[in-house]
């Protein structure tokens, strides 16, 4: 007995050493290299059939090969033919097929009767959903029904959802969880360039000399792309600057780590522009030919109250006015606001200003989940526009995404309240265009947007919305100020449908739970961060009665009387839907690749013109949509010019004070993907990171006599939560700041976060609110 325990302990020790050696050898924890992938394949795997797919998890869109044997997906390896990951996998991608085979997979529709869930047939469940929708529309009007989807929706899922709700039912109550993660990137692109999504692509990484990571823990959130940065450092000696509020694995791997106080990135970005102008680093001919200067409204508020409205009023300004505005943002002045030394601000500015250095700025949630998210996106574009470092290989402001199809389904299909697949509901020409393809009367499409995500859940709480269908997302973990929205969803007279693959806190609020087919259990497409659309075929059968989200929606649409619009055949519906969807994007600015191309290769980047992907938009050398006869053409704006915005620093909605003296920041970890509903069912990932924790600064912890593992109570104005402490482990927050990951449904940090949002993008700020901490 004793021996067996000793052996087990020795075995575990070896495992611990092996994990660390693998992590060290791989330069960074979380990456699995091709050799290692091959070595770890199941025994006797020579007969596996390998089929290509984009990874199920983040927005990087790695190409993977899924090994199928006897109808079961049993292995994954990185696709060496994929230009995205070149054969690499992160720990999540490598274990992704295991997420399909959790013990508690939903396989039967469940209907709540007298407070208990009862199994039913799919036909009966779909009948009930259709009749409830009709009944709700009859009793409360079309704007009482809604759908809340996801950046994990495939392109066909989102497309049929938009067509049903916007085109057929006639409500703009269509939103997706990407509102919570990249809406600020969208409004940043639209306000600066008039066209959404990055102008560059991942190939920029192989050309850039300097990488500035703006509040982006890329080593944990985008490990495969980060390994490409590290690879370039080994080969070419590139510089990596981590500009963040917290010390992370990214900081450790960076050449320089610069910490700033939360929200003050606005001031630092302006200070960099101040330095660029002061030192004569402005690319004058580029700015003169291709840029305008504008300012918008300030002191916009934070959206904390119900039915909050804001509309910006852009006003053109001169370069001289902009220069005068920047006088408030000298490095010396900004040092006092931001905690970043003037020397470090000048250090960053010098790289941006050096005409011989190609610079790539990368960001994700730090800039997007920001109460001035649109502004900070604008300000980083300002830096690149002033120096002309944009739309050329290696000169690239690049917004990363967190979900596999946040770009493909939410931004391109347009599953947000104001959007259509091409254009916006407010524009009569765009409505006419969509109505013609959808074969619906143009009057069906309402010209007024309704609710963005936070307001949609507020409307559910108030009773303005009575029916909500939630697909492939987990808002009862992710909504900020969660308690209000959970209580609201549970109120009498609300009918909630949830389509998912596992029980979650969101299925707990459902009246009907539909089992969904996930990823390669059905056919579909995702669109990644670099405008790359990737197709995957159905490789295995879904369990039980599980059905794709696309087909669930088609079945309900038919039951509601929209057979004409939902004419698709079950065997060929994905192809039919994709071909119909492509019609919305016809033209040199956004053409999508034909399905045959997507089946043949590891995706294609739109605009796909004359059989070619476009790698750098707005640059006439690469982008066939440029038509002004100049080297660059920002054709998203009517005058073909990008906008340099005057945007000030403003404080966050809630900042630390005497009662709540610490900043609370939330985020993710490398092992778990978002709310962990899939990765927590993968044993190796769950064991590696079994529960959430609160990271404290070591000095704060010492003062409060808190050690790792001690229970700590976090209290905000919304409530309280108890978490185990983590001191000097993975990440180290700055003094008077704490960090909590949100993946753990048993420790719902969002119960105490704040639902403030960027007034322009309506994306909540999950990175900043005030909190009190005490040892329990």
């Amino acid at each position: 007995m004793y021996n067996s325990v000793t052996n087990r302990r020795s075995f575990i020790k070896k495992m611990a050493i092996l994990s660390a050696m693998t992590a060290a050898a791989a330069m960074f924890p979380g990456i699995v290299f091709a050799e290692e992938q091959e070595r770890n394949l199941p025994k006797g795997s020579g007969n596996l059939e390998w089929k290509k797919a984009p990874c199920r998890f983040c927005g990087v869109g790695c190409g993977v090969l899924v090994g199928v044997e006897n109808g079961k997906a049993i292995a994954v390896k990185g696709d060496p033919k994929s230009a995205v990951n070149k054969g690499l996998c992160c720990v999540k991608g490598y274990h992704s097929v295991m997420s399909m085979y959790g013990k508690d997979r939903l396989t039967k529709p469940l209907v709540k009767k007298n407070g208990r869930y009862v199994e039913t047939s799919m036909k009966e469940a779909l009948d009930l959903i259709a009749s409830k929708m009709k009944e709700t529309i009859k009793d409360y009007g079309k704007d009482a029904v809604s759908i809340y989807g996801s950046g994990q929706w495939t392109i066909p899922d989102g497309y049929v959802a938009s067509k049903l709700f916007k085109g057929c039912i006639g409500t703009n109550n269509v939103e997706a969880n990407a509102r919570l993660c990249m809406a600020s990137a969208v409004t940043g692109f639209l306000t600066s360039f008039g066209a959404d999504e990055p102008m560059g692509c991942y190939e920029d990484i192989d050309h850039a000399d300097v990488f500035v990571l703006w509040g982006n823990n890329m080593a944990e959130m985008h490990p495969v792309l980060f390994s490409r940065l590290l690879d370039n450092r080994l080969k070419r000696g590139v510089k990596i600057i981590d500009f963040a509020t917290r010390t992370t694995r990214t900081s450790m791997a960076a050449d320089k780590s610069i910490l700033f106080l939360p929200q003050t990135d606005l001031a630092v970005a302006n200070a960099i522009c101040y330095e660029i102008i002061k030192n004569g680093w402005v690319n004058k001919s580029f700015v003169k030919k291709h840029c305008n200067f504008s300012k918008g409204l300030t002191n916009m508020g934070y959206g904390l109250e119900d039915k909050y409205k804001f509309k910006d009023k852009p006003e053109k300004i001169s370069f001289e006015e902009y220069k005068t505005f920047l006088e408030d943002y000298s490095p010396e002045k900004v040092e006092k606001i931001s905690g970043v030394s003037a020397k470090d601000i000048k250090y960053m500015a010098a790289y941006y200003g050096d005409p011989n250095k190609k610079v790539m700025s990368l960001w994700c949630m730090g800039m997007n989940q920001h109460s001035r998210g649109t502004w900070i996106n604008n300000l980083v574009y300002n830096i690149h526009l002033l120096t002309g470092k944009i739309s050329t290989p290696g000169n690239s402001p690049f917004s990363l995404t967190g979900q596999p199809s946040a770009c493909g389904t939410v931004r391109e299909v347009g599953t947000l309240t104001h959007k259509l697949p091409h254009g916006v509901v407010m524009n009569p020409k765009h409505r006419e265009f969509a109505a013609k393809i959808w074969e619906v009367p143009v009057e069906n499409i309402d010209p007024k947007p309704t609710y963005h995500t936070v307001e949609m859940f507020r409307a559910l709480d108030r009773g303005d919305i009575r029916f909500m269908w939630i697909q492939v997302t987990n808002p009862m973990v992710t909504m900020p100020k969660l308690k209000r929205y959970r209580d609201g969803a549970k109120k009498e007279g609300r009918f909630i449908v949830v389509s998912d693959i596992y029980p979650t806190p969101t299925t707990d609020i459902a009246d009907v739970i539909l089992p969904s087919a996930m990823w390669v259990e059905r056919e579909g497409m995702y669109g990644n961060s670099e405008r790359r659309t990737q197709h995957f075929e159905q490789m295995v059968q879904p369990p039980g009665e599980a059905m794709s989200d696309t087909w669930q929606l088609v079945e309900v649409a038919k039951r509601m009387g929209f057979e004409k619009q939902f004419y698709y055949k079950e065997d060929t519906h994905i192809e039919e839907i994709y071909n119909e969807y492509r019609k919305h994007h016809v033209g040199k600015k956004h053409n999508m690749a034909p399905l045959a191309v997507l089946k043949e290769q590891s995706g294609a980047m739109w605009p796909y013109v004359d059989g070619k992907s476009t790698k750098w938009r707005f640059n006439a050398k690469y982008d066939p949509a440029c038509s002004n006869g100049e080297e660059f053409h920002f054709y998203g704006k009517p005058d073909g010019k990008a906008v340099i915005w005057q945007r000030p620093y403003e404080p966050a909605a809630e900042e630390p004070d005497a009662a709540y003296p610490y900043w609370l920041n939330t985020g993710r970890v490398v092992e778990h993907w978002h709310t962990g509903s899939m990765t927590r069912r993968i044993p190796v990932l769950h064991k590696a990171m079994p529960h959430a924790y609160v990271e404290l600064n070591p000095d704060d912890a010492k003062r409060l006599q808190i050690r790792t593992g001690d229970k700590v109570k976090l209290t905000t104005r919304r409530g309280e939560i108890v978490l185990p402490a983590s001191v000097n482990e993975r990440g180290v927050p700055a003094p008077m700041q704490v960090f909590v990951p949100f993946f753990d449904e048993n420790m719902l940090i969002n119960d105490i976060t704040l639902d403030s949002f960027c007034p322009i993008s309506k994306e909540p700020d999950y990175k900043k609110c005030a909190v009190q901490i005490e040892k329990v």
Partner: protein
Amino acid sequence: MAIKSYLAHPYNGQKEKLQKELSIIPHCEVIPAANKDVLILVTDTNTRQEEDILKEKLETITSLKLLAMVSGFNTKNK
């Protein structure tokens, strides 16, 4: 009680010093890594108290820039 493995990042030019300092601490095993920038540290403690004392000692090492935990296992020791 707990077996944990870490990547120990030294301050510039202080890797050898870090290796020496870690090696003399009880319950610590230092292993060179293929990645020359870091050291692998494995800690093996029997009680919570030992773990806490170890943590305190690690925090006093001046050549240690960051200790990034890679894996942690709790296991019975008797």
